[in-house]
């Protein structure tokens, strides 16, 4: 009986020892020396791995932060200012200035505005539709409504509105990680400067067709008439390829342009209902 006990103790012990030696040797052989600051920086990052910074994940971004000398171009769109400052302190480098951004959907072609011209019968994917044809509406620029941006969002900040069949961004949840912008095959979503009280004013259309054609396909299309350009006191609006664009950096939210638009393509969001004549500084 005692033989059995002793034997098993010896055998198991020897096996354990052998395994330990092998593990130790392998760990020595394949040991990778890493800058310990990478781990420290990664601690501060949100671990969302959204890719909004342009790197494949938080770890890769942390490595980039440690390796690069000038980190003023590197931003984590999800982190707040405090944690970025902490990272800068760990690394002893200068942090760039952060501008809060928010995703904005630049299409208002709901079915009542932009009538459907055909029925799409295929896999629900914006990418597949846009490579096949113009989509269910006549507008070759508009939203395809299959919600690839919704799938791309890691923060539950963008949802399809069942009535308009358009995606809507919840500003508080949006981290401006850029995932939806990349996901949209039509480049409809844009990251714009976040203003006070989430106020926004933008041209909700990216149609570059001539006015008549654009109007035929969608009632709220920008027809490139240029009225908004003339009325803007800050030269924030440019007209290119039959399409007006409001530069978020120049715009001071004076709201003069919106009433001018004959197709109501310029949207004002989160402003008080009563119209003010004077400019409100953003």
């Amino acid at each position, binding site marked *: 009986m005692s033989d059995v006990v002793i034997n098993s103790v010896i055998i198991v012990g020897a096996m354990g020892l052998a395994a330990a030696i092998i593990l130790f040797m392998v760990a020595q052989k394949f040991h990778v020396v890493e800058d310990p600051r990478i781990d420290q920086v990664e601690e501060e990052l949100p671990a969302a791995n959204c890719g909004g910074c342009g790197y494949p994940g938080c770890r890769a971004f942390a490595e980039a932060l440690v390796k690069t000398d000038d980190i003023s171009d590197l931003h984590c769109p999800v982190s707040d200012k405090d944690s970025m400052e902490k990272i800068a302190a760990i690394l002893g480098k200068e942090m760039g200035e952060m501008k809060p951004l928010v995703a904005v959907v630049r299409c208002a072609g709901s079915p009542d505005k932009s009538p459907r*011209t*055909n029925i799409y*019968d295929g896999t629900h994917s914006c990418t*597949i539709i846009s*490579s096949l044809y113009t*989509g269910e509406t*006549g507008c070759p620029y508009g939203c395809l409504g299959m919600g690839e941006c919704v799938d791309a969002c890691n923060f539950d900040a963008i949802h399809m509105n069942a009535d308009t069949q358009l995606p809507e961004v919840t500003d508080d949840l949006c981290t401006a990680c850029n995932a939806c912008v990349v996901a949209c095959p039509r480049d409809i979503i844009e990251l714009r400067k976040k203003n006070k009280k989430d106020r926004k004013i933008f041209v909700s259309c990216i149609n570059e067709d001539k006015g008549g*054609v654009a109007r035929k396909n969608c009632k709220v299309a920008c027809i490139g008439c240029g009225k908004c350009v003339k009325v803007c006191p800050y030269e924030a609006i440019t007209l290119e390829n039959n399409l007006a664009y409001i530069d978020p950096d120049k715009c001071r939210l004076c709201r003069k342009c919106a009433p001018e638009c004959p197709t109501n393509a310029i949207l004002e969001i989160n402003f008080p209902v009563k119209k003010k004549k004077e400019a409100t500084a953003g």
Partner: protein
Amino acid sequence: MIKTFPKGGIHPPEDKFSAGSPIQELPLPKSVIIPVCQHLGSPSEPLVKKGDRVKTGQIIAKSSGFVSTNIHSSVTGKVEKVDKFTDSTGYRRLAVSINVEKDQWEDNIDTSNTLKKQINSKAEEIIKKILDAGIVGMGGATFPSHIKLSVPKGKKVEVLIINGVECEPCLTSDHRLMLEKGEEMMVGVRLMMTALGVNRAVIGIENNKPDAISNLKTIAKDYKTIEVQVLKVKYPQGAEKQLIKSITRREVPSGKLPIEVGAVVHNVETAYAVYEAVQKNKPLIERVVTVTGKNIAKPSNFMVRTGTPVAYLIEAAGGLPEDTGKIINGGPMMGKALNSLDVPVTKGTSGILVVPQSESLRRPALNCIRCAKCVSICPMGLEPYLLRAASEHKKWDIVEEERSMDCMECGSCSYVCPSAIPLLDYIRLGKSTVSKIIRSRKQ
């Protein structure tokens, strides 16, 4: 011996309703819309402006780069405008619209029907004339033909393969052309052989077209260097790589061109266009288009000028049936569904197929039961079920590793799937994403 390619393939219903109707000359429409990009490559540069008068066969847009070609007016009339028009995908692209007045051809074009067999041109002249005439691959790929006929340095062409397979169900334009314009086509093949400097050409035809086979075999007796090869009916035999495999037993390496194995493939209709261009000075402004469908009153084959609206063709074939569900530009396997009838016929339009409502919707997709039918029929030896799963879960590295870029989108996998899974949709999605990734990697 009847040959075919060994790997995969399917047998969809042939539905060649229009095989018995001879090619009819379609009267000119009131106006035509001629896109400046009817080929693969960079769009041509327009040479005309609003108000210009143009003659039939006059050049209206010129080649704008290496992979590009010329565009000619298909009618005589006044240029209405040079503007963006909706093309077959619904997107708006640059095109020239011309109001048709009459049909007066350019003076140097021989419009007679006399057969000109004598070949006087040298290789360079032939290639130049093909570029001048704006000839592109008319099987559907629309790759400029003069490039395919210029042999790159260091490569040697051993055989010219002429594609008369027409494996797409429903389409009959190539079939009718081989039957009715066989003599002209044969001269065209000779011209292409001169251009390439080869002394062997093989015309591949599937054995569901016995009349065309016997016609070409009779004509080929006069040409020692041209053979007619009968092939077993199997889709997608008309695909370039599969056809080369069927005829020469050689496999074009993945990601390479047919010239790697000493072969060049051209469509029968391209051969006819080459004959017209070189022997008759006639640019590519018309082609045979099949208009067909289960409920079409008169399934027909029309000789159509480029720029003619699709609606005009359907009208000529007896009008659009009541229960139309889908209109397809091309055949049912690889053709693209149209969302408007106002789009013009281009150099690559081989057929217009009208599908009834009852057959135009897909069955709802079920779970994959891993029956392996898609794997066994894939002519490229891929695993569609795996590509679909990887693409659905956005595993782009697997999509790339599993050679998705070899897929030629023949649609056989979607066709056979008993669960009605749209495999090809997902493979396309994977392909487009992977090619984006590959491009960004190169930068």
